[in-house]
Structures are given as C-alpha cells and as structure tokens.
C-alpha cells in the first residue's frame, strides 16, 4: 500500500508549458485516482526546488533531468523515474532588428544574449551551441533577463540582440513579431539538429533514499504521470486549454494554443529515457562545465526505469 499518501512536490515555475504534464496530472485528477494528495510548491526557479528536495522539505520534484547528473557530482543520489519532456524546449532566437546580421549561431560572436539566468539551462545551451561552432563561452556576453515580462521587455527595448529562452516568453515574442528563431529545441527536427537525438528535459525525480523507502508511493506518482502523458499524446489543443486554469492562457487562448502547438512535440510520449539521450545530456553538461568529469558519472544511477515499466504494464 501507499506509504506516503500526502506528498509535497516542488517545481520551479508551475505555469510554464515546460511543466504542463504536472498541471495536467493535477487538474485531471490522476493523483487522486492513485490515492495521492499532492501539494505542489512553486519555487523561484528549478534550482531552488532541487535544494528543497535535498533539504528535505519536498518529497518529489518536477525538474530538469540535468539535475540528476549534476547531483552525482555533488554526491547526492537523485533519480528520475519518468521523463516528461524529451526535448529541452529551449529556443534561441534573434531580435528582428538583428536578423540581418545574425543569421546563424556562428554569428552570435560578440552579441548580447539574454538568458533566464546565468548558469541556467538556457545559458548552458547557448554555450554548448557556441562551442560546437568553434567559439568559446566568452565570445558573447550573457545577460540574465529573468523568466517573466522582464525578458520580453529586454528584447522589446533592444537591450539584447539574441535570446535563449523558454515558452511562454518565446511565443509571446513571436506573437509580437520581435523574434527570428535560430534554434528550436521544442521540436524533433530542431533537437536532432543540435544533439543528434533526444535530450531529456523535465523529469520527475526523487531522492534515492525516498524511492527505497516508499516504492509504492513512487509507483503511484509514476502511474499518474504516465497516464497524463498518454492523455496528452491524444489530446487536442482545445482539450489542453480547457484542462489548465484560465490564467495560464497568457491572456489570450489563441496565443496559448499556438504556444502549445509549438511545444507539443517536446512532451515525452512514453516517459522513457534511453541510453543515447542520457549521454547526450551528459555531453551537454561536461562540454560547458569542464569541472565535471564524465568518467565519474554513472548514468545508470540517474534514471530508474523500473517504475515506468510497471506503469506501462498496467
């Protein structure tokens, strides 16, 4: 039976499309169906929700897969149990004003690039792209623009030439006609072009000790999310829009649907993380952070597929 029916879950920016499966699982009542009462705590950022997990104030986190790798380096045993987003969902685009001079990633040299925050995944992705294109990380200046309206403002005011960001900022900028997209990891094509395969983004992860102590609870959570992914696979944009709270619609349902459609491919359909995509994620981190030694990372400890397998079997 379920060891811990009352669960606290952390997330860094719940209304973001990145975490859509979480909102859906909640709104569709799948947690309840599994006999769980989940309190969702929203944090100022993904890293803060991870800290909360390690500090013990939340039991589970919907966060970036990348965290599980980094935590191994910090000797913290964190494991993902199900994948929610198979592509990073990050978009690198340039301001319309600079569209003529910056045509590809190679032209980013010397540009002012807005990222959600220094050190965040949006920042790392651009660095990765630049390194792949033979530049060093210092060849551009990075400006943290935050995650909300301030990012839009920075672009609109011409404070930055390019941006590496997530939805809904990207959709909003597109809607405003401010943005020309260079790299789009919301789509299969875009992600394959960058990584040559999948690169897991949002996952559900726990502390290893928690998994051990509460296997049934973890199973129930995995089940709920698996069901959500399956629901999402078939849902129409209209259904999704109807399922989320109205405030999430960015003030305009049409815009929300547009944004959802753009991100649709990035949601995982089976919840699995395969070997190749793990490596791809590790590669992304070690390329940009030379302090992390790939030899010391045991990727098999980042993802525990046993719960997913059981969920699928149901």
């Amino acid at each position, binding site marked *: 039976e379920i060891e811990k029916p009352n669960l606290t879950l952390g997330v860094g920016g719940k209304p973001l499309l990145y975490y859509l499966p979480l909102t859906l699982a909640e709104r569709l009542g799948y947690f309840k169906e599994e006999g769980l009462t989940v309190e969702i705590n929203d*944090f100022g950022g993904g890293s*803060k929700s991870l800290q*909360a997990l390690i500090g013990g104030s939340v039991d589970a986190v919907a966060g970036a897969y990348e965290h599980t790798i980094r935590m191994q380096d910090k000797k913290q045993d964190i494991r993902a149990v199900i994948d929610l987003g198979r592509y990073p969902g990050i978009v690198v685009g340039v301001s319309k004003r600079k569209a003529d001079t910056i045509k590809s990633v190679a032209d980013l040299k010397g540009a002012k690039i807005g990222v959600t925050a220094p050190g965040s995944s949006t920042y790392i992705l651009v660095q990765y792209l630049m390194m792949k294109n033979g530049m060093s990380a210092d060849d551009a200046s990075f400006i943290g623009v935050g995650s*909300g*309206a301030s990012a839009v403002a920075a672009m609109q005011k011409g404070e930055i030439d390019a941006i590496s960001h997530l939805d*809904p900022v990207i959709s909003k900028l597109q809607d405003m006609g401010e943005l020309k997209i260079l790299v789009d990891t919301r789509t299969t094509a875009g992600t394959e072009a960058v990584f040559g395969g999948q690169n897991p983004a949002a996952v559900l992860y726990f502390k290893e000790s928690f998994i051990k102590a509460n296997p049934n609870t973890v199973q129930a959570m995995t089940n709920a999310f698996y069901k959500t992914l399956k629901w999402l696979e078939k849902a129409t944009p209209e259904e999704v829009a109807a399922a989320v709270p109205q*405030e999430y619609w*960015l*003030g305009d349902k049409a815009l929300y649907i547009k944004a959802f459609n753009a991100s649709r491919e990035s949601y995982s359909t089976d919840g699995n993380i395969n070997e190749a995509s793990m490596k791809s994620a590790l590669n992304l981190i070690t390329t940009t952070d030379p302090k992390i030694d790939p030899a010391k990372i045991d990727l098999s400890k980042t993802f525990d597929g046993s719960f997913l397998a059981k969920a699928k079997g149901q």
Partner: protein
Amino acid sequence: MKLHPVKLLFLQILVAVVVLAIWHIGATVPIGGDYLLPEFFFSKPLDVLSRVVELFVSGTIWKHLWITLTETVLAFIIGSVGGVVIGFWFARKPVVAAVFDPYVKMVNALPRVVLAPIFMLWLGLGIWSKVALGVTLVFFIVFFNVYQGVKEVSPVVLANARMMGMNERQLFRNVYWPSAMSWMFSSLHTAVGFALVGAVVGEYLGSAAGLGYLIHQAEGVFDVTGVFAGMFILAAFVLVIDWFVTRVENRLLVWRPQAASEQN
C-alpha cells in the same frame, strides 16, 4: 493647519483618482504611437479592479490572504521584539556592541533572496521560512533605531533616574523604553512594510499558497492584471496593519507635546 477629516479624505481620494487616471490614460491612449504604460506590462486600472473584486467574490483570495497575514504579523512581531531586545542590549553594553558591530552590519547586507534556500532547509516550506525572511528585514530596521534611540536618552533625565536608585530593569522600564519609543515607532512604520515584503518574497521563492504565490503564478504566465491585483491587495493590507501600529503608538505616546514643527 489641521485638516478637516472629510477634506482630508477627499484629498486622499483625489490623489488616488489622479494616479488611476494617469495609469488608465497611459495604458489606453497611445502617445506618439507608443503607449506610456503598455498594457502588457501595466494592465489597466479597471481590469485590475475587477480582478480584485473577482478574487474576493470567488473567495479564492481568503486562504492566501490569511497565510500572508499570519506570516507578516509573525515576522513583524518576532523581528521587532528581537530588534528591540538586541537594540537595548547593545546600547547598554557598549563592549558587546563594539565587538558585534561589524558582524551585524555584514549580516544586514546579505541579500535575503539568497538566504531563502537556507531558511527552507532549516524551517521547511511552511510559513516559518517566510516568517524568517521577514524577520531578517524587520529586525535590522528596528534594531538600528532602538540602538540609537537608547543612546539619545537625555543625560539629565537618566542621571536623575539613576540617582533615584533605579536598577537596570527599572531604568529600562521607566527611562530607556519610553525615551526610545518614538525611535522605535518610527522604525515600526517602515518595518510593517518590510515584514510584508519579506513574507511575500518568501512565498514568491517557494510556497504553495499566499499572496506571493499568487503573484508568482500570475507573473509566470504574463498575467499582469493578476500581479497588479495581488500587489493592490498587499498594499491595502499593509494599511490595516499600520493602522493598528499607529493606534498603539498614539496610546503609548500620549505624553508627547504636539510636534513643534507642525505648529503654525
């Protein structure tokens, strides 16, 4: 020089109306093709108002309001009591004050946003980590003022009280405390606002409820109307708390002559 209450209220409302009018015009009338206060960033006053009404009518706000209220009041009380106690202690023990002085100032300069994870680690995700954040703001504001207030005690009044034979406790009660009171209350008015800021920022950085949570949610989806509605409720809220502080102040400071600077 004293204004009639009705006239005062009228003027206050006038100020509000003028501000709202500027906001409304800035958000809806383009000036030279550009909006002064683009709706995307500022929403519109009427929208905000109707959202506020909606929040109250639908009842969703009460739970959040209650949590934030609890946090604010706790932060305010704990922070001020701490500030008063430590402020007095430092003022009365110059050696302690001299030794700890640099550390107090250092701690005061730590960005609270960065401390949030530590508070969550120690105090969990409930209200206490938010209270702690508020306390770190309130404490310093009150502390520095009480510290100075005690030092400003009139030397003659103090000497007289000591000659009367007052011990340290009696001096505190009869001299330092009443003398530092106007300093303390001055800081409390600032502190009320900061207690709320602390609570809200704490919620903003990680929580499942409260006004800061609401605002954070709204921000993530560009719901400026929601953000402004939340801020408006916050602001209205602080007036209520401040009103209580002022009542206590007027009660405790009956002995004071009318401020000299206000006489004709």
